C-alpha cells in the first residue's frame, strides 16, 4: 500500500516548496506575522507527517526549524539564520527526493541533521558555524525518549504480545495524544481506535491529573491513548493520517518485553511537538485536510493518462480527414456535412486540450527554487562568490516543460559559475564586485516562454573560440562571425574550457542543454560580451501536450518533423540544383532568394537509402534558423497535431531524434531533431 507514501511525497514537496518560497521574505526588515505563521504551519505539518516514515533525521531538522521560526516572532531573523533555515529546507528537500527514490536516507543523514539543528539553535555561538554539533548519540537518545513509553506498555501486555508473536504476527505500538482542542474540530479519537480490528491492547490515561469534577472542561481533551495492534504500519498510518502529528508509531520489537529497545525502522521519533500539552501550534494539524474548499489533489499519472487519451482522440479525429475527402469525392453534400462535424470535433478536442494543459501547469518556481542553494554551494566549492536573483518564477508552464527545465538550467548555472564568473580577486582587479551576479528571469513572449540566465562574468573570448574551432578543423572557422562562433558551443564535444572540473562538463554541457531544450520544443541562443558576461536565452512553448508536426517520407521511412523547425517547403526543378564539384559525397546547393543554401539528402543523413536520382522535381524542406539548410525528401504529407512522446529505453538520448508521435493512421513516426541533424 503505497498511497500514503505517495501522498506524503506530494505533500512534502508542496510544503517544502512553500517554505523555500517564503524563507527569502524573512530578510525583509519587518516580516509580517502572517509570513511566520505560514512558514511555521508548513514546517509543522510536514514534521507531523514525517513521523510516519523512517525519516527521523528529517524530523529532527524540521523540529529545529520550527523552534527557530518560533523565536523569530520575538526577534527578527539575521541573514545567517535565514541562510541556516534555507540550508535546512534544501537538505530536507534532498532527503525527501532520496526517500522517494531510495526509500531511505543517506548514511550521514543523522550527523548532518545534528549539525543543521545545531546551526538553527538560537543563542550565543557561531550561528553559521558547526561549533556545538550534538553527537549522533545525543540525537539517538532523543529518539529513544520518544519511545520510552513503549517498553512499559509492552511489559503490561506481555501475554497478549507473546500470543501474537507465537503466531508470527508483527505488533505495532501507538501513542496518540489528541490535541486539547480536538473535540472542537469534530475529532473523535476513540472512533479511530474503533477502526482497528487488530487491537490487542488499549490504555486510556489523563495527560494531566483530572481536576475536581466541578472544574472539568468536558470539551478539552486530556487523554493519552496507548495501543498495541496487529494492523500493518501502512494501515495504521492511513487511519491516523489526519492526526499524524499527534501520534507516535513504533513496532514492538519481538523480544522479551522489557529488553532495551534500540531504534528500529518505524521508531518514527519525534512527532508530537514537545511534551507540554498546551503548547501553541498555530494551525498545527493539517488544517487543509478538513477544509471543504480543499483543492483536489490528483496524481500526475492520472493527468498524463488523460492527456494520452486526449492525444489518441486527436489522432483519431485526424484520421477522419482522408475519409471526409473520400466521402466528398463521392457526394459533395455529404462531404461538406462530414467536414463540418469533423471541424466541430477538432474544436472540442482543442478546447479539451487547453483544459488538460491547464491541469498540467505548474509554476516555474518548481524548478527554479532549488537553484539558489545549489548556486551558493557550487560557488563555494569553486572558491567563488555568487548570488542568484530570480524573476518571473511564478509564471506557469506545462509540467513536462517545468520539470524538463531543471537539468538544463542546472547545467547552465554550473557553466556560468565555473567558466563565467571569475574568482573574487580577478573580479576586483577588473573593477567588479567580488561576488558574481547571476540572474534567472522568465517572461512570456506571446505564445512562448522566454527564460534567460545572465552572468556578469568574463564572457566568451571570440578569438579563443576561433582557435578552438580551427584546432578541431571546423570548416570556415577563420571567417566566422561572433554569432557563428557562439553557435559552435552547442555542437557536441566542443569546449574551450582550459581544464575539466568536476562542476561542469567536458564540453558536453551546452550540447546537452540544446538537446534537452529541443526535446521540450524550444531553442537556445547565447549572447556574450567579452568581459561583461553571457546571457543564455531559452525560448520554450508553454504547453507541450500537442505538437504541430509535418509528416514526410525520406529514405523510404514515414517520418515527421516539428513544424517550427521548418521555414518552408519547396518543389525544386532539377535545373536549379547546383552540384558542388570538388566536395566529397554528392553535395549540392541551390539559390533561395539570392542566398546559397546547401542541399542535403535527408534519407542519406539518417543513414537510410537515398532518394531515387533523376526526378524532374525535388521536394525540399528548408530548415528554420539563421543558417538554413535544404533537405531533400521523397514526399511531404499533411500537418498533424499530435502528442510528442519522449524516447524511451534504448532509443533515449539518440541524437537527431526528438521522440515519436502517432500519425493519423495510428502508426508510430520518428520525429526528427532537424537542428541536430543539419549542423
Amino acid at each position, binding site marked *: 500500500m503505497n498511497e500514503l507514501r505517495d501522498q506524503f511525497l506530494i505533500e512534502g514537496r508542496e510544503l517544502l516548496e512553500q517554505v523555500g518560497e517564503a524563507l527569502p521574505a524573512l530578510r525583509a526588515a519587518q516580516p509580517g506575522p502572517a509570513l511566520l505563521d505560514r512558514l511555521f504551519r508548513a514546517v509543522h505539518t510536514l514534521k507531523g507527517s514525517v513521523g510516519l516514515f523512517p525519516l527521523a533525521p528529517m524530523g529532527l531538522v524540521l523540529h529545529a526549524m520550527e523552534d527557530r521560526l518560533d523565536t523569530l516572532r520575538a526577534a527578527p531573523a539575521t541573514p545567517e539564520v535565514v541562510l541556516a533555515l534555507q540550508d535546512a529546507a534544501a537538505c530536507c528537500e534532498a532527503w525527501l527526493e532520496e526517500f522517494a527514490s531510495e526509500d531511505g536516507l543517506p548514511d550521514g543523514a543523522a550527523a548532518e541533521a545534528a549539525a543543521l539543528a545545531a546551526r538553527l539553535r538560537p543563542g550565543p555561538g557561531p550561528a553559521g558555524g558547526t561549533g556545538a554539533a550534538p553527537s549522533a548519540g545525543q540525537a539517538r537518545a532523543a529518539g529513544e525518549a520518544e519511545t520510552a513509553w513503549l517498553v512499559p506498555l509492552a511489559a503490561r501486555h506481555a501475554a497478549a504480545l507473546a*500470543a501474537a508473536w507465537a503466531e508470527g504476527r508483527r505488533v505495532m505500538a501507538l501513542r496518540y495524544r489528541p490535541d486539547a482542542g480536538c473535540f472542537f474540530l469534530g475529532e473523535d479519537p476513540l472512533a479511530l481506535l474503533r477502526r482497528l480490528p487488530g487491537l490487542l*491492547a488499549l490504555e486510556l490515561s489523563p495527560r494531566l491529573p483530572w481536576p475536581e469534577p466541578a472544574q472539568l472542561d468536558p470539551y478539552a481533551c486530556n487523554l493519552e491513548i496507548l495501543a498495541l495492534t496487529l494492523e500493518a504500519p501502512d494501515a495504521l498510518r492511513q487511519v491516523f493520517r489526519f492526526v499524524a502529528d499527534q501520534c507516535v508509531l513504533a513496532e514492538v520489537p519481538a523480544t522479551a518485553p522489557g529488553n532495551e529497545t534500540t531504534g528500529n525502522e518505524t521508531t518514527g521519533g519525534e512527532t508530537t511537538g514537545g511534551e507540554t500539552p498546551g503548547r501553541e501550534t498555530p494551525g498545527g494539524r493539517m488544517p487543509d485536510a478538513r477544509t471543504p474548499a480543499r483543492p483536489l489533489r490528483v496524481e500526475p499519472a492520472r493527468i498524463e493518462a488523460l492527456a494520452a487519451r486526449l492525444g489518441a482522440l486527436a489522432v483519431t479525429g485526424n484520421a477522419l480527414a482522408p475519409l471526409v475527402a473520400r466521402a466528398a469525392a463521392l457526394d459533395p453534400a455529404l462531404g461538406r456535412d462530414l467536414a463540418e462535424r469533423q471541424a466541430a470535433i477538432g474544436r472540442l478536442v482543442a478546447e479539451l486540450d487547453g483544459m488538460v494543459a491547464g491541469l498540467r501547469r505548474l509554476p516555474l518556481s518548481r524548478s527554479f527554487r532549488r537553484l539558489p542553494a545549489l548556486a551558493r554551494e557550487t560557488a563555494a566549492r569553486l572558491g567563488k562568490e555568487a548570488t542568484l536573483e530570480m524573476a518571473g518564477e511564478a509564471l506557469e508552464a506545462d509540467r513536462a516543460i517545468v520539470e524538463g527545465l531543471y537539468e538544463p538550467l542546472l547545467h547552465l548555472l554550473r557553466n556560468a559559475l565555473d567558466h563565467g564568473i571569475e574568482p573574487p580577486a580577478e573580479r576586483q582587479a577588473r573593477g567588479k564586485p567580488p561576488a558574481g551576479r547571476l540572474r534567472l528571469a522568465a517572461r512570456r513572449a506571446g505564445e512562448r516562454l522566454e527564460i534567460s540566465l545572465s552572468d556578469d562574468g568574463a564572457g566568451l573570448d571570440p578569438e579563443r573560440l576561433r582557435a578552438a574551432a580551427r584546432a578541431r578543423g571546423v570548416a570556415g572557422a577563420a571567417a566566422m562571425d561572433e554569432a557563428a562562433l557562439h553557435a559552435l558551443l552547442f555542437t557536441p564535444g566542443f569546449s574551450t574550457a582550459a581544464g575539466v572540473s568536476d562542476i561542469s562538463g567536458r564540453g558536453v554541457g551546452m550540447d546537452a542543454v540544446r538537446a534537452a531544450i529541443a526535446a521540450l520544443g524550444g531553442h537556445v541562443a547565447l549572447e556574450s560580451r567579452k568581459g561583461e558576461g553571457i546571457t543564455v536565452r531559452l525560448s520554450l512553448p508553454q504547453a507541450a501536450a500537442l505538437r504541430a508536426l509535418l509528416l514526410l517520407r525520406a529514405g523510404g521511412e514515414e517520418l515527421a518533423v516539428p513544424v517550427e523547425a521548418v521555414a518552408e517547403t519547396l518543389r525544386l526543378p532539377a535545373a536549379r540544383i547546383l552540384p558542388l564539384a570538388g566536395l566529397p559525397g554528392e553535395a549540392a546547393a541551390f539559390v533561395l532568394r539570392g542566398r546559397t543554401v546547401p542541399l542535403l539528402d535527408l534519407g542519406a543523413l539518417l543513414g537510410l537509402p537515398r532518394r531515387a536520382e533523376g526526378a524532374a522535381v525535388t521536394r525540399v524542406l528548408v530548415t528554420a534558423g539563421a543558417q538554413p539548410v535544404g533537405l531533400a525528401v521523397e514526399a511531404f504529407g499533411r500537418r498533424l497535431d499530435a502528442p510528442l512522446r519522449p524516447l524511451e529505453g534504448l532509443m533515449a538520448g539518440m541524437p537527431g531524434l526528438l521522440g515519436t508521435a502517432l500519425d493519423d493512421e495510428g502508426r508510430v513516426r520518428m520525429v526528427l531533431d532537424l537542428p541536430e541533424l543539419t549542423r
Partner: protein
Amino acid sequence: MTLRLDDDTLHLEGDCGSEEAEPLLSLLLERPSRGIALGRARTLHTALVQVLLALRPRLVEAPTDPFLRQWIAPVLEDGSSNGAPELIQSAPPARHEGL
C-alpha cells in the same frame, strides 16, 4: 435524545455525540450517585468517555457494542483510583482471526 435520565440512571443510547458531554457532566455533578446504563449505546464519543473516566460513575448496565464492551467498559468498571494508567485492557490475538 441519546442521553436519557430515568429514575436516577443515565442512559446513553445509540450514537452518542460530543454534544452530550456537557449535559452528562451536569447530571453527574448534580448527583454523583447516578448510575450509567450503556446497554443500548452503539458508539460513545471520546468526550463522553472522558467525562465517565474523570468522574467514575457506577456502571449499572454493561454495553453490548463489542468495542465498548471489550475496550471501554472494563475501565469504567475498574474502581481503581487515579493511578496511571487508567485503563488497561488486552486481548489475545486469537480473537481476531478475521484480520
